[in-house]
């Protein structure tokens, strides 16, 4: 089938196209340069913006943790539900929608690729089952490796090559895409009711520090030629004064940079940019972090913007969630995933009138505006931790319009308002910047060669928004921009028209992207290791890997490693 998108204003930052009026041709799921005009189905995009399909680098949408969140929050489903239609299935949930609803809602905002960022290796099968049931999107998932016992042990022995082969084995057998590190060392310590508070703290029983974990896995990342950098949720997340830890984390891998590829991705950076002694003296550390990122090229990050709404926080950071539970008194789920990681879930409401929440809101936007290069910071809410992903259009409006920020600021906690750096920032992002922050930059950082751009040969994932960049001034008409990004005029996934005027017209199943890492020799799996699987895990070694038949639509990426 051929598809021709005519006369749209095309924003394709990776190919340096900035709002030119041009036609796009699609054949067999790819962007092509030659087409048969008579046979092609035409979409008239005149007066509309054409962008590559959205890419989300960090959103919790599948897996044991998300599913437990669904169980914990019937009240979240009660108010937000969708009826079944001839094409789509019914679903419920506001901050943690059911899998199908997740797929539909993303697609209706023009998103086509998403990354599920935290998967305990033990729960890999569950995660992939849910990803199979998330339609309309291509997806991948990152296994949590920062506190995996074998990783800690190899690091303790200093055998990086052997660790690299082991990580290759676990990455391929859990069908993962990148190395995720959450509160390195802290989750292992949480097994003993403790936490770590700096990069130099000792991890109980292993004689190594969080710095060793970050540096070790960063080296492994390089040895394995992984497309994405290590994806780090920093230590001390959500604690006042943690911006110093974040700076230290970024500094710790400064020397490991190679070939201008980023060495580290700091995720939901807003939660890691708190300055101050305690909650009362909390301030924004965005300026310090932005200054560092502006001077260094080895870091990328995403915002983790806070939205004033009722949401559910869920991370693998067990100790942090416990603190949050004590702070709010809300219900709490705690989980210790055997020898691998931990997890916690607490419902949370961000309030405009709360000083801390208002400061958090401000930090997220400050980061995005103070980091000069949009290729280094991406738009996320760390769904659902900062707010549901359905709020991305509101963030786009805040980033593009000083007026929009002012309108929200008016209703904020007055003390937070007086301390915010936002009134002094006059920067307003352009549509091109937004295209970078919501798709091109994320795809580039993830190393997804065929996503995030509209060049010949790219996957035909296209989003068309009904807003005319020539006649609309986003700085004043931010509401029109917000509406356009909320309700995509058309979404094309893999060359098929799936959304038309905010309505799903066709359900497609995206594929699961995973890394097939080819090492020169296989990881050493000795009898001792199998014995330990038998003794310490609930799943035996032989049953551990996610076999190929688990994934309905598999899209392996073969990578030759250096070990």
């Amino acid at each position, binding site marked *: 089938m051929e598809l021709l998108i005519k006369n749209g204003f095309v924003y394709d930052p990776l190919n340096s196209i900035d709002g030119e009026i041009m036609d796009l041709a699609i054949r067999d799921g790819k962007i092509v340069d030659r087409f048969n005009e008579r046979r092609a189905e035409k979409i008239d995009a005149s007066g509309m913006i054409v962008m590559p399909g959205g890419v989300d680098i960090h959103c919790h949408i599948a897996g044991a943790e998300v599913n437990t969140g669904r169980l914990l929050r*019937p*009240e979240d489903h009660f108010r937000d539900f969708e009826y079944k239609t001839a094409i789509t299935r019914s679903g419920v949930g506001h901050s943690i929608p059911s899998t199908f609803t997740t797929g539909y809602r993303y697609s209706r905002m023009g998103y086509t690729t998403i990354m599920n960022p935290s998967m305990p290796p033990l729960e890999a099968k569950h995660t992939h089952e849910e990803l199979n049931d998330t339609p309309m999107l291509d997806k991948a998932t990152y296994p949590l490796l920062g506190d995996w016992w074998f990783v800690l042990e190899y690091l303790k022995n200093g055998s990086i090559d052997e660790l690299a082969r082991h990580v290759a084995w676990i990455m391929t057998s859990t069908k993962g895409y990148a190395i995720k590190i959450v509160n390195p060392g802290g989750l292992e310590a949480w097994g003993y009711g403790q936490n770590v508070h700096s990069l130099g703290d000792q991890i109980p029983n292993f004689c190594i520090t969080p710095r060793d974990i970050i540096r070790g896995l960063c080296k492994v990342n390089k040895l394995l030629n992984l497309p994405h950098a290590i994806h780090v949720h920093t230590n001390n997340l959500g604690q006042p004064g943690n911006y110093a830890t974040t700076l230290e984390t970024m500094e710790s891998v400064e020397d490991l940079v190679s070939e201008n590829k980023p060495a580290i991705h700091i995720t939901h950076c807003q939660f890691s940019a708190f300055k101050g002694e305690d909650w009362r003296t909390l301030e924004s550390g965005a300026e310090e972090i932005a200054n560092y990122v502006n001077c260094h090229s080895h870091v990328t990050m995403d915002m983790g913007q806070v939205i004033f709404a009722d949401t559910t926080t869920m991370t693998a950071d067990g100790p942090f969630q416990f603190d949050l539970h004590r702070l709010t008194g*809300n219900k709490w789920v705690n989980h210790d995933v055997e020898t691998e990681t931990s997890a916690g879930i607490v419902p949370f409401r961000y309030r405009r009138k709360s000083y801390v929440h208002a400061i958090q809101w401000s930090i997220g936007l400050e980061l995005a505006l103070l980091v000069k290069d949009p290729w280094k910071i991406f738009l996320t809410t760390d769904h659902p931790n900062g707010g549901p992903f359905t709020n991305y259009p509101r963030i786009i409006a805040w980033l593009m319009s000083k007026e929009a920020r002012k309108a929200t600021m008016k209703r904020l906690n007055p003390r937070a308002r007086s301390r915010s750096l936002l009134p002094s920032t006059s920067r307003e992002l352009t549509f091109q910047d937004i295209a970078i922050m919501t798709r091109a930059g994320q795809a580039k950082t993830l190393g997804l060669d065929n996503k995030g751009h509209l060049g010949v040969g790219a996957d035909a994932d296209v989003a068309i928004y009904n807003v005319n960049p020539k006649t609309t001034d986003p700085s004043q008409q931010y509401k029109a921009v917000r509406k356009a990004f909320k309700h995509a005029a058309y979404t094309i996934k893999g060359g098929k028209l799936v959304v038309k005027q905010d309505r799903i017209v066709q359900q497609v199943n995206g594929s699961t992207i995973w890394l097939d890492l080819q090492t020169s020799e296989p990881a050493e799996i000795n009898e001792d290791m199998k014995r330990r699987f038998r003794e310490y895990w609930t799943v035996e070694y032989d049953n551990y890997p996610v076999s190929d038949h688990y994934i309905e639509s598999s899209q392996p990426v073969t990578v030759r490693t250096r070990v």
Partner: protein
Amino acid sequence: MIGFFPLRKFVFPVIADCICPDVFKDKSLKEIRELQVWEGNKQKQLGQLFRIEEAKQETPTITIQGDVSKLRRIGARMTEGEILVNGNVGMHLGEEMKGGRITIHGNVGGWAGSMMKGGEIEICGSAGDYVGAPYRGSGEGMKGGRIIVHGNVGHEAGAFMKKGTIKIYGSAGQFIGFRMRDGTIYVENDCGPRAGACMVGGKIVVGGMLASVLPTFSIDSIKPRVKIEEEEALEEAMYLFLGDVAESGNGKLYVSKQRNPQLSCYEKFL
């Protein structure tokens, strides 16, 4: 006044949140008959389920004659007017109501006055579980208004309550005032166990028997008189317990001295 007469006995639940004075305002009888409701998984018009008649008198705004125990969410989010039902009604009566008045001459299902913010509900029969309590999982309890039940109530009445008054002239089930923060609950007769579990504020008054008080409550004093509402008080000796200590709470649990001789062992701590 608009009168509703069910045409048949309902077998499946009918989600009738459109039976509400706010919805009927400025609507002709014909338009009311055409309002859509779900009966089980089928969408129906109100006129297919009820004979609907208009009468001249002004109050009450809506009356329902007959057993409608499958009818859910009557008067949901209402802000004014009056609903009168002569018969039993189903779950979620007056959910999130903000004003007005509902009177039921019959029994009511669960979640009566759930998440209520204002207005008044009077139930002449008994009520089910979760009177004035929020929906499952939610912590947003009753924020205002009054609920008066002349019969008995089930478990967890007034859970997560933040403000308002619940008066029960019958007896109550377990966990009354679970996690309540403020407001008043009065039970004239007996009360099930675990009254006031996890409460951090507010007042529970038990005029009948309460077999035991949770160990996380401590006795404070014996009061000769307890105020329940403006111009309404209970003139008898009452034990006052404070708790729930496990939640660092400061809720007040009053229990009748005369009806609870088994609690006299607490007097030695005074």
